[in-house]
């Protein structure tokens, strides 16, 4: 199954990288074929403006994957060090970090996204920042919780007895043993961020038309659900498959990184 996940994710990356080269301009309109069902000329059909759905799916893959991967990466890069330090050193830092996390959790995601869009304008950058920020509390919490458990293990005490310094203990003992739940979190967060991007774009806070994204496509498709259901099916299917792919890949990655799982 992990291989299936890898195949799916690689397929999406290829679609995002190579698809646009094959399909041409996603904004090109074919006025003779609006809301056309899938055919030889338009393998996924066309939308209300006669734009090729396949071209838009391929270009949208770029936006969706970027939003998903970049925002998760951002949250990890910022959140894991914070969680590590707060959980490992405790003292005065830990309560401060945790209260800040509580504040962040209490802050409505959409309000924050609206504010951010107002400041830097609705764009992919804004989407990545908003989604990354909204993932941050979960990452910090998970990291800190794992660190709290791992630092009490005897092998950490043994590392101190070995004469190891804090840096060595954190990076060679604590972090590797906290990795599994973080990888799982990432594989859940990436598809969630893809959906989050769709949500923000749907509300006009994300990627702006005519740039295609799966979320934007779903928004349009909603109005033509009974006349042209394929318009909703394709982006919906893509989101579902991307979610499945990342989840399966995450399972596999966790197994590969954990020596306990292979004989």
């Amino acid at each position, binding site marked *: 199954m992990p291989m299936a996940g890898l195949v799916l994710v690689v397929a999406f990356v290829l679609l995002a990288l190579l698809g646009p080269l094959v399909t041409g301009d996603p904004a090109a309109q074919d006025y003779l074929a609006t809301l056309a069902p899938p055919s030889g000329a338009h393998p996924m059909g066309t939308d209300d403006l006669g734009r090729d759905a396949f071209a838009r799916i391929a270009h949208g893959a770029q936006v969706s994957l970027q939003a998903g991967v970049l925002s998760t990466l951002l949250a990890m890069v910022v959140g894991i060090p914070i969680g590590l330090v707060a959980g490992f050193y405790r003292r005065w830092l830990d309560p401060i970090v945790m209260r800040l996390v509580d504040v962040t959790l209490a802050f409505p995601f959409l309000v924050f996204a609206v504010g951010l869009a107002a400041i830097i304008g609705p764009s992919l950058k804004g989407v990545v920042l908003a989604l990354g920020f909204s993932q941050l509390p979960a990452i910090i919490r998970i990291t800190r919780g794992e660190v709290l458990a791992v630092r009490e*293990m*005897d*092998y950490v*005490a*043994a*590392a*101190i*007895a*070995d*004469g*190891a*310094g*804090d840096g*060595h203990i954190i990076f*060679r*003992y604590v972090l*590797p*043993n906290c990795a599994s739940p973080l990888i799982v979190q990432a594989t859940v967060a990436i598809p969630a961020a893809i959906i989050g991007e769709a949500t923000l774009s749907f509300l006009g806070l994300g990627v702006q038309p005519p740039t295609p994204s799966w979320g934007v496509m779903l928004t349009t498709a909603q109005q033509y659900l009974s006349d042209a259901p394929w318009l909703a099916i394709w982006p919906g299917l893509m989101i579902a498959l991307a979610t499945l792919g990342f989840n399966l890949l995450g399972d596999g990655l966790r197994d590969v990184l*954990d*020596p*306990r799982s292979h*004989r």
Partner: protein
Amino acid sequence: MILRIDNLVKHYGPVRAVDGLSLEIGEGEVLGLVGESGSGKSTVGKCVLRLTEPTAGTIELGGRDITHLSRRAMRPLRRDVHMVFQDPFSSLNPRFTIERIVAEPLLRHKVTDRREVAGRVAAMLEKVGLRQEMRKRFPHELSGGQRQRVGLARALILEPKLVVADEPVSALDVSVQASVLNLITDLQRDMGFSCLFITHDLSVVEFLADRIAVMYLGKIVESGPTAEIFAGPRHPYTQALLSAAPVADPARQRERRRIVLGGDVPSPMDPPSGCRFHTRCPLAYDECRTSEPLLNDPRGSGHPAACHLVTADRVPDAAK
């Protein structure tokens, strides 16, 4: 003296885990520190390795006061002392191979020449009776006994002067216990390190320890040479502990009188007044409830006990 602990106190909040404990371990000496769970014996071990901060008292390692050394200042001294942990499942980093685990102390003390490290690890693994093909394995692939041998190898690879062994066999199957105990005995004779051997099981240290110290609620109640403790325990608590261990002779076992202690160990958050053992001691009388007996050795025989009833010409007998 390799290790000298003087009046060590360690409180975890209101819990008085160790409450004024002194002991000494000489060069090449094995001291068995015996006590029930909750008596504070593991805390003593952790304090010696500075894995936890002592509340008060002093700890001297090889004549040097290490009680308040910083982590950094302590690091070079860690060559001289290491620890074997109780739980063989949580004491080895699951992400490291056996070879790496055993090599870590070397690497942390700037022994980095690859060939030297590999050679010393291989020699150490052989000493603890692990086959060379174990080197590339991960801890989860080993049995409890094998893991404990890895823990021993890690503790001994720098040839420390002192090894703190915290219940190193109590998590193992009885059949494996004996072989690991024999291994520790052999290694100790061979390498000559001093050892603070912490256990709840007197019979485990009978053939290993030179001296025994019995702990109860954060204090030592009796200490002395192993043979003397076993032949003539002075403190009623030690007498009760010894009477609880079966003798491998049915005829004698049947005749023995067991001292059954009532109740539980009192809470270390609120230790009893006077003698800490008075709530469970069959011989307790008024003075025990009010005044705390100090370790005394009326015969000067290096076998002190903390009991009012121990005098120059009299030793209490809790079995009566």
